[in-house]
Every structure is written in C-alpha cells, then in structure tokens.
C-alpha cells in the first residue's frame, strides 16, 4: 500500500474514569479536520464503572472497519500499565509503538490484586520485540495541577507520531475541552509533545 493510501490504526486503553473516551474523540476529530475518512469505536455501559476501557480509531483515505486487527496498530496508548499490557498485542510487531503511562491502578474487586499486579512490564514488552515509549504522564499532569490530565499528556506524545499538524490538534482541543479547563490541558498536551523518552 502506498503511503497516501495508508490507514492509521490506534488503540487506546485505560480504566473507566481515566478519560480514555475523551482522548479517543480528540484524536478522531483531529483526523477528520485533517481531511481523513475516520472510524472510531467507543464503549458505553457497564465497563465505564471502573472497569477496563478500550477504544480504537482508524483514519486514512478510505476506512472500512472501525475495529483494529491485533498486530496492525501503529500505536497503542495505555493510560495505565495493566491495561496497556492487555491491549499490547494490537501493536504492529516491528513498526508499531506502545505508549505506556507509568501509572498503576490496582483493581479493587480482585483478590490479592496487589501481589498479582505485573512488574517489569515495559521490559517484557521490549523483550517481545515491541517498541515501547514510557511516560510518567500522571506525574507530569500532577505537576501541572491535576493528575487527571494524564490522558491529554499521552495524546500530546502520540501526536508526534501521527501525520496531523500541531495547529489541528490545538484547534481540536479548544473545541472539545471546556474553556474553564482549557489552559492547563493545552499545557499538558505541550508537555506530552515535549516529553523525553525514558
């Protein structure tokens, strides 16, 4: 497939309440604004109650399926370590990137969750041959005033990997985020863009 017919596939994952859907929408809207055909999946209903949340965006000249095939994603964005691991197999083996927020949320309704929580996750993924970019997005967001903006830090970093110009991202953020919260979120996005790979 030629570069101009390429379809971009991105998978987002996290825990209900982390704002997975918001950044999925922002990415999809930015792609629309840039003239692409776009499809997107969302989850509604029970999983939003603190469960695993996974969404997908695909854009390109002509997109059929909204669903990404495992092994085909250009990027997997994990807002939380366990959930990032859960979605990791979507990444394309050689060229795909896994963006991992180094943030743990231990499932509250699983027994011994603390002990069972995976360690060395990034190393394991690297061993498997995946390209991994780790980010302390929650920490960065916290320093900017609110850890909950970690999601926006993460798409800041994601934006550097996608063929969508910076102005379109900021325009989309301005459209989608309430004025009251806009300024810190624009800063969070910038911080993500500037984040040095750990």
């Amino acid at each position, binding site marked *: 497939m030629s570069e101009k017919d390429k379809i971009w596939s991105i998978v987002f994952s996290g*825990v*209900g309440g982390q704002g997975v859907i918001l950044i999925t929408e922002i990415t*999809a*809207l930015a792609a*629309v604004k840039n003239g692409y*055909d*776009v*499809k*997107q*999946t*969302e*989850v*509604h*209903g*029970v*999983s*939003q*109650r*603190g*469960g*695993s949340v996974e969404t997908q965006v695909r854009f390109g000249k002509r997109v*059929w*399926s*909204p*669903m990404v*095939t*495992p*092994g085909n994603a250009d990027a997997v964005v994990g807002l939380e370590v*366990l*959930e990032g*691991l*859960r979605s*990791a*197999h979507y990444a394309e*083996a050689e060229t795909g990137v896994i963006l991992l927020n180094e943030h743990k949320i231990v*499932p*509250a*309704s*699983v*027994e011994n*969750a603390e002990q*069972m*929580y*995976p360690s060395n996750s990034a190393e*394991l993924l690297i061993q498997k041959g995946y390209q991994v970019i780790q980010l302390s997005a929650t920490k960065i967001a916290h320093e900017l005033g*609110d*850890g*909950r903006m970690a999601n926006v830090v993460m798409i800041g970093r994601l934006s550097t990997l996608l063929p969508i110009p910076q102005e379109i991202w900021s325009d989309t953020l301005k459209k989608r985020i309430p004025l009251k919260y806009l300024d810190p979120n624009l800063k969070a996005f910038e911080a993500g863009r500037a984040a040095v790979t750990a």
Partner: protein
Amino acid sequence: MKRELILGNHAIARGAWEAGVNFASGYPGTPSTEILEALARYPEVDSQWSANEKVAFEEGMGAAIGGLRVLVTMKHVGLNVAADPFMVFPYAGTVGGFLLVSADDPGMHSSQNEQDNRYLARMAKVPVLEPSTAQECKDYVKLGLEISEQFNTPVMLRTTTRLAHHKGLVTFGERHEVPRIEQDLDPRQFSVPIYRRILRPTVEQRLKDLESFAETTELNQIENSGSTTGVVTNGIAYQYVKEILPDADVLRLGMTFPLPAKILRDFCNIHEQVYVIEEGEPFIEDFIRSLGIDNIVGKELFGVIGEYSPGRLGSALGLFELPPDLTKEMTLMPRPPMFCIGCGHRTVFSALRQLRVTVAGDIGCYTMGALPPYEASHTTFNMGASIGTAFGLERAGKERVVAVIGDSTFVHAGIPALIDAVYNGSKITLIILDNSTTGMTGGQPHPASGKALSGKDAPTLDLEGLCLAVGVEHVVKVDTWDRKAVNNALREAIAYKGPSVVITQGPCQRLPEMKRRSLTPYFIDESLCTQCDACFKVWCPAITRTENNFPVINPQECTACTVCAQVCPTEAIYPFEPNYVQI
C-alpha cells in the same frame, strides 16, 4: 451539506428527526440508550422515557394508529418485556410509520444474555432492516418508516453494539414534516382479540407482499467483481468483510426479514463457494440451507458466540495469524467494573454481607454486589426478578430472604411482584436502592426521580406511599450513607413478621448535580491514626496506602460520603479545611 463524525445511535436520532418523527419513546438499555438522549435535543420531537419497554411500545403503538410517525427504542431483552404488544400489533397494522429500534448486544458487553431478535421479528412477521454503517443508521430510519406506511406494518431496525457505538462520518439532511394521517379507529381493525380471524389472513398476505419487495429493494445490494468467492453478509459485519476480503463478490442484505429467496439462490448459483458472515445466530444461513443450497460456509467456521471482528474473521479464513494476546501468556488479571467512589450501594452490601442472609439481586449497578469484595448478592436474572425469586426461595425453605432492587428497576417490573408477595403471604424483605436515577445505563431519569427526559421537572412517584398502598406494613426510609441506620433498618425489617421494605436513599454520585456540588474532602490525620486498617474495610478506591503504611484519601476523588469516618475508632478522619481545628 454538513458532515460529522457521529455515533451510530446519534445517526439514528438524526434520521428520526429528519424523517419527521413526531413521537419517540423507550426505556434505557445498552446499546440503545443514546438514541433518545440525542433525540430529546430536537424540540420538534416529543421524546420520553417510559416506565418500561412494554409501556413504551404501547404508547408508540397508540401514537402510530393515531397517525403519527413514531420511533420506539430498547435493548434486545427489552423486546422480551414488550413482546406481548409486539406480537399482536401486526394483526391490526399501523397507520403512521412505526419503527422499533431493537439493539442486540453480541459479546454481552452490558447484558445478561446474547439474543438475536431477528427470530422475534420473524415470529411477529415484522420486517427487519439492518444498517451497516453510521450513514445507513440515519438513512434506514426514513426507509423503515416508509416501508411501515406502505405495508401498514411495524418495522424493526436491528442494531448491534459495535454499530450503535461506533462513529463514522454522516451527511446530514433537513427535517421533512410529515402530516398526521387521519383515520377513524374502526374496531374491526383495532380490536384484535374479537376480530382476530378476519385479521389473521392480512398478516400472511402482507408477508407475501414483503417477500416480493425484498427481491427488488435497494436495501439488498450486490457488489460483483467476477470473483468465484461470494460473501453474504449484513450489519456491521459488512464493514469487516470489505476490510479483509476486498476482492470478493458481496451480497449485502440491508433487509434480513423477509429474505429474498431468488436473489440468494442466484448469488449462490454463480459462485463456487459462498461465505455467510453474520454476527449472532445463523438466521440468514439457515434460510439459505432451507432453499436446498449447500455450497455455503457459515457458523461452522466463524462461530455463533460473541462478537465478530476483522481479526476473528480473517484468522478463521486463514488469511493471517493473530499475535498472541498477552492476557493469557502473562496471566493478566481481569478488571471487572465496580461501585463508584462514594456509591450509596456500598453500605447496603456491606451490611448484607455481615448479616449472612440469602439475597436475590436484580439488574443495575448493584448487580456488582455479587463480585468480591462484597459477594453479598446470590442471584441475578432479569429486570424485576429479585422479588419473585426471593419469594420462591422462601417457599423452597430458605429463611431470611432479601430482595435487592434499584429504583428504576422497581418501577420497571418490580411493582406487580411486590403486590404478589403481599397477596400470597410472603415475609421477604425488599430493599429499594433509591438513587434517583437509572444508574447503570448512564443516569436516565425515571418516574420516581422527579425529572423527565427533557430535563424538566416531572411528578415524582412516592415509593414509600406506593409500598404502603400495596399492603406492606413495615416500610422504612434511611440515609444510605449512614452505616448504623442502614444496618439497624435491615435487621429490624428482616426480623419483621410480614413482608417489609427498606428504602435506602441517596443520589447517584454520577448525577450532574452531585458532580457539580462543592464539597470538602475528607482527610486522614496521621497523628491520630493507629493504622488499624478499619477504613480499608469500607473498600473505597479513593483510600490507598502511603509509603509509611498510613491510609490516605485522594482529595480529588473523595465524595465526602463520610462512610470511612464512621468506622474510624480514633476519629482520625475528618473534613479537610486548611484551618480546621478538631474539637
């Protein structure tokens, strides 16, 4: 024309508005809920949440025979509740267009079963349309209403979770007002039980007419590129087929009942092999086989259970191999959903766990009371089943049986069961979790919440008065965040000699008014804390541990529900004010 990236469900709402729908009713249920929520934003359409799906259907039926264009929405199991009018309405037939949106949930993302409602439509002899894209979600609403008016029949628009909850680009149109159709209500048409024998043949004749229509309608489309392989598909699966088999010939069925026998026969004849790719049950496949055609491959390759995806279909066809899912390889634990921080349901299940009673649960957020750490709800079937199940368990010899039901579910299907429990001399205790909303589906108002779908105030059903009126003598209301009060109320009610009701009150934390309110978060004073861990036992996710092993409350997440403070033996937990001095 405006083109926007919108949800399949929002496209359906837009389609209803453009097609001149005047009245819309439904009951919330994933994956159908967003349709009426979006439609409520259009003032031209009279949209409402009804008490349950049966009522919603009947209201829509009345409006349609009164000559209006009508949309009725519900999730797949909702149609079980509305099956009674659904099966009878086709005898009389409709006057104004009547479109039922039935949203199936393959994969059970948010449901208690997988159920393919095309069978119910076939049983009712009602035509079924199945859009494949977000654009078609919009366009098929108008087409469905036109078919409804042309053939005087209710029509089902069947969607599935991915279709309803995916976004695609949709081109908008204008609204076309459709004048109300005037027709006298002739008892010979609309009194079905008495005139049923006259009406019965019309159903068969209509079905024949629809079968001919299916052979010519543009809803069914063939894309021929001269391949020897053919694919028969429908719904969202069409998008997956186009993705993984771009060169195959495709017969895409936009109308899946009645099916076009001639088109299917011809298509299968000219292809060496035909794949039938339909999510759910082998509805199309069985029909093709019934025509004596056997060069088809379907469920034996792709499976009946769960959701389809391009990955699943492609690997079944041997087109590619899927990389291993790390869930198994790394034994990643699951992350089931759970009660929100500050959820009023928590205290009830803590108390039930302590009381070690038999609990018949119901459908709502409180279904999660069956999960660890509470594990205090023993059965869940369908909406409203808690009360009848508790009654039966009591008859089977269980003592101290409790039914737990949410306010929306109680209104939906609990009231007749409570009347029955009183009438037949039960001693069960019913807990009504009154959080002023339909929480599980994202917070829709209902008759006991005091609000309407429009956001305006509405008459509020008095739950306590209702329980007293049906003959329950012991009815108590408590503040759900008062642990002691909840415990005591439950103990007393369970010990009561007759049937009893405890109504636990406290709004859902997800309601906008709760999220918006200003509050002072609680905080743990390390100088008073003895690390006894009592506060951890209220299982609040906002409480975690510091490096020095002290409990700590995340102030951004705390809802000031006070439950942790109530259990602290040293009063080390109190509202955090910068200059707070404890007295």
